[in-house]
C-alpha cells in the first residue's frame, strides 16, 4: 500500500535552531498516526511544513506517491491536506457557513442559502452536527472544533492534521471527537494526531511516532505492547515514572475561605458569580474547568489583584477585602501565576533579580532601601542549587531560559517564603515531563509542610493525581466540590460541561 502522505528527510531551521532534523514520516490511508513529543520537539513545525505555512530547508514530501511542492496552504488544500490548528482559525463575527465557505468560491456572487444547504448536507454525511446559520461566537469550544473539521472536509481533505485538538475539550467532548475520527477513518480519511497526552494517544491511534529534539526517535507500529510509561520514556529519552506518591494526611484548620465571591470584568459584566470555596491547611484543592470559565478572574480576586464586586476573601482569619496585593503576600499568600512570562517573571531582567521579586525589600536583602549584594547572591546561589535551576550564570536574562527553568525560578522563590496558602495556576502548562515532575513534588512537599494549596489547572489528569478535593468551575460558578475518592474523570467532566448532577451537588453542601 502506498502511503497517502510521505515525508522524507525534512529539515527546517530557524536561525541556528534546527526544529526538524531529517524527519521521515509515513501516513497510510484510513489510519490515525499520532505524533507525540514534548513542547518544542518540533511537532507543530513539521505540520506547518506539510501544510505549506513554512518552506522546508531540505527534504521532500510525497502525496499519493507523487512528489509535491507545497509552497502555501492553498496548495496543501488542493492536494487534499487539511489542518485544524490548536488555536482555531475561525472568525467569531461570522456565521458557520461564512467561515466554511471563506476562500473557497471563485465566482463573485455568493448565495449563502445555497452554501448553507450544501454545508448541512455535508454535516449530515460526516455526522458533524452544526447549525450553518449560527454565529461562531455563540458556539461552545467543542462545536467550534466541529466547524473546523467540517471546514477542512468540505474542501475535500483526505488528510486531516489535528494539532493538540483535545487541549480545550472536556473529557466528554474528547470522546465525541474520537467517535468522529473513527467514523472518518471508515470513509478513508487519514489523520495525523498531535498531542502530548499519552492516554488519549493510545486510545485513538493506530501508530505512534515520537519526535524528540526535532528527530523521529521511535515509531510504534503495534500499540498493544505499549503503555503510557513506555511512551513517556521515549518522549524524554530516559526512564520516567508516571504518577505521584501522596501520603494520607488529615487537613488542619481553614486557611482560605471564599464566600459569595463576585468579580466583574472591565465592562462590568459579572465573571465570577457567588463563588464559595474553602481550603484547609495541608490540603490540596484542585480547581478543574475548561479554560476561560473564569479561572483567571477567580485567582486574581483571591490574590487581591482584581477588585471584588461582592463577597469576601478570608485568609488565615483576616478579612482581605479591599487590601492591596502586598497585604495578601504578608498574610501568607504564595502565588504561582498562570502566565509566567507576563505575571511571574520580568523576562529582560536577570535570573538573580527574578529570584527576589517579592522579597527584595525585606531584610536581609535590603537594609534601609540599600540592596545587600552579598546576602542576595548567597541566597540566589542557594535557591538555584536547591531548585536545580539550569542557567549558565545568575546574570543571564530570565527570558533566555527554557520554560521549565523559568518555572523553577518562580516555584523556588515562592515556596522558599513558606506561604500558608499557595495558589498554583496552571503550574505545569507547557513544561516538559521532567519539570512537571519537579513542580508536582514541590506542591506535594508544601502540602506535607501544612500549606493550603489551591491548584488551578485545565489538565484533568494533573488535578486528579494531586488533589484531596476537586472543585469545578463553569461559567464563573462553582459546580460542586468532590472528594478525591469520588472524583472520577466522568463525574468531573460532566461538571466541567456545566451539567450538575445530584451526587456532586450533594457533596458540595457538606
Amino acid at each position, binding site marked *: 500500500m502506498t502511503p497517502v502522505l510521505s515525508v522524507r528527510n525534512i529539515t527546517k531551521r530557524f536561525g541556528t535552531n534546527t526544529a526538524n532534523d531529517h524527519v521521515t514520516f509515513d501516513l497510510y490511508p484510513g489510519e490515525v498516526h499520532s505524533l507525540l513529543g514534548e513542547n518544542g520537539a518540533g511537532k507543530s513545525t513539521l505540520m506547518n511544513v506539510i501544510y505549506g505555512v513554512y518552506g522546508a530547508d531540505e527534504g521532500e514530501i510525497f502525496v499519493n506517491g507523487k512528489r509535491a511542492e507545497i509552497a502555501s496552504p492553498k496548495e496543501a488544500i488542493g492536494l487534499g491536506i487539511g489542518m485544524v490548528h490548536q488555536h482555531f482559525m475561525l472568525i467569531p463575527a*461570522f456565521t458557520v457557513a461564512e467561515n466554511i465557505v471563506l476562500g473557497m468560491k471563485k465566482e463573485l456572487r455568493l448565495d449563502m442559502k445555497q452554501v448553507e444547504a450544501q454545508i448541512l448536507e455535508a454535516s449530515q454525511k460526516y455526522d458533524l452536527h452544526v447549525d450553518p446559520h449560527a454565529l461562531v461566537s455563540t458556539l461552545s469550544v467543542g462545536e467550534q472544533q466541529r466547524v473546523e473539521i467540517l471546514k477542512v472536509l468540505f474542501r475535500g481533505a483526505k488528510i486531516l492534521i489535528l494539532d493538540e485538538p483535545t487541549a480545550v475539550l472536556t473529557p466528554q467532548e474528547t470522546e465525541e471527537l474520537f467517535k468522529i475520527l473513527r467514523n472518518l477513518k471508515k470513509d478513508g480519511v487519514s489523520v495525523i494526531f498531535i498531542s502530548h497526552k499519552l492516554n488519549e494517544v493510545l486510545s485513538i491511534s493506530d501508530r505512534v511516532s515520537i519526535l524528540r529534539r526535532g528527530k523521529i526517535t521511535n515509531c510504534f507500529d503495534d500499540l498493544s505492547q505499549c503503555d503510557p510509561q513506555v511512551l513517556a520514556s521515549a518522549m524524554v529519552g530516559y526512564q520516567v515514572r508516571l504518577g505521584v506518591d501522596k501520603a494520607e494526611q488529615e487537613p488542619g484548620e481553614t486557611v482560605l475561605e471564599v464566600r459569595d465571591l463576585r468579580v466583574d470584568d472591565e465592562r462590568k459584566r459579572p465573571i465570577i458569580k457567588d463563588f464559595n470555596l474553602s481550603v484547609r491547611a495541608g490540603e490540596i484543592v484542585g480547581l478543574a474547568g475548561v479554560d476561560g470559565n473564569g479561572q483567571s478572574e477567580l485567582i486574581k480576586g483571591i490574590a487581591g489583584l482584581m477588585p471584588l464586586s461582592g463577597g469576601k476573601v478570608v485568609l488565615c482569619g483576616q478579612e482581605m477585602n479591599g487590601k492591596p496585593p502586598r497585604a495578601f503576600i504578608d498574610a501568607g499568600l504564595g502565588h504561582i501565576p498562570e502566565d509566567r512570562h507576563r505575571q511571574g517573571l520580568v523576562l529582560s531582567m536577570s535570573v538573580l533579580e527574578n529570584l527576589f521579586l517579592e522579597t527584595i525589600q525585606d531584610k536581609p536583602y535590603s537594609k534601609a532601601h540599600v540592596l545587600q549584594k552579598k546576602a542576595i547572591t548567597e541566597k540566589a546561589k542557594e535557591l538555584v542549587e536547591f531548585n536545580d535551576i539550569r542557567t549558565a550564570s545568575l546574570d543571564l536574562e530570565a527570558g533566555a531560559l527554557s520554560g521549565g527553568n523559568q518555572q523553577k525560578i518562580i516555584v523556588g522563590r515562592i515556596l522558599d517564603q513558606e506561604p500558608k496558602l499557595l495558589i498554583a495556576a496552571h503550574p505545569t502548562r507547557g513544561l516538559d515531563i521532567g519539570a512537571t515532575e519537579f513542580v508536582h513534588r514541590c506542591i506535594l512537599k508544601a502540602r506535607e509542610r501544612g500549606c493550603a494549596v489551591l491548584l488551578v489547572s485545565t489538565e484533568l489528569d494533573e488535578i486528579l493525581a494531586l488533589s484531596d478535593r476537586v472543585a469545578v468551575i463553569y461559567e464563573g460558578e462553582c459546580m460542586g466540590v468532590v472528594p478525591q475518592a469520588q472524583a472520577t474523570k466522568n463525574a468531573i467532566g460532566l461538571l466541567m460541561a456545566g451539567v450538575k448532577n445530584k451526587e456532586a451537588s450533594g457533596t458540595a453542601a457538606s
Partner: protein
Amino acid sequence: MEVLKIFLTPDFWSSAIRLMTPLMLAALGGIICERAGILNMALEGQILMGAFFAYLGSYLTQNVWLGLVIAMIGSMSLAVIHAFMSINVKVNQVVVALGLNTLAIGITSTIFRFMFGTDSQMANCPGFKAIHIPGLSDIPFIGPVLFGQYPLTYIALLALFGISWFLFHTSRGLELRAAGENPQALDVAGVDVIRIRWLAVLVTGAFCGLAGACLTLNGLNTFYDNISSGRGYIAYAAIVFGKWNPMGTTLATLLFGAGDALQLRMQAMNFNIPYYFYLMMPYLITFLALVFFMGPSKGPAASNVPFVKDKARSSKRRPKQTSGIGGK
C-alpha cells in the same frame, strides 16, 4: 418657532444632502479599508489631496470629468504611501495617518502657491452643474431634495448600494471582511491577505478623491488651504457611529450634513451669537453623537493589526546578558 420651520423646507434637506455627500463618499470608502483591517485615519489628508487635484485637473484640462479622474489619482497617491507603510512596513497605522494628513496640507498648499501665487486672485475652474432628473425632479418636496443634485451625489448613492452588495453578497466581500476580522484564518484558507488589504486602501483613496472633488467642483470651483477642514475625521466618526455598516454610516453622515445645513441657515437668521458658534455645530454634533448615543461599539477585530504571515509562532527571545544587581 422659526428655527423649526427650517426642517419643513425642501431647500434645507436638499442642502443637507449636498453637504453630506463628501462625508458619505469618504466614509463609504473608509468602510472598505476598515473592514479589511486597516485603520484609516488618513481620510482627511486624502480628501484634501482629492480636493486640490480635482481643482488642478479641472483647471488645467478645462474638463470637469478629467478633473475628477485626476482627483482620484491624487488621493490614491497618498493611499499608496499609506498602504505601503501600514501593510508592508507595518508602522503604527495611526501614526502613518497623522503623518499623511500633515503631508497632504503641505503638498496641496505648496503646489497651490507655486502655481497660482500668493495673491488672493482666484482662478476659477470648470465645475459640476446640478442635474435635474426629468420627471422625478418634479415630484413635490422629494423631487428637489433627491433628484436635483450634483452628479457626485448620485455616484455616492450608487456606491452605497454597490458597497453594501459587495460586502455582504459576494465572495470577495466575505474575504475582505475576513481580512479585517482574522487575517490568519483567511491566510490559512489560501487567500492573499496582503493583496486584499492593498486593494482596499487604494479603493478608499479613490473614494476620498471623489469626496474631495465635491468640495472644489460642486459650485465653489476653486481651492483654498486646508479646504477639507476636518471632514475626514467627521467621516471617520460616521463610520464608527454607523457601526461599520454602509447604511448606518450613510445615516450618520446625513445627521452631520443636516447639522451643517442648519448652522448655515441659523447664521442667516441674525441671532445675536458670534458665527463661530454656528461653524462649530457639525463638530459638536460629531462629538455629542459619539459620546451620548454610541455606547461601546466593536469594529473589525483585526483593525490596526498588521498582518504577519508566520505570526502563529512568536519569535524566540535571544539570550542576552543583563547587568542588574549582582552584575560584575
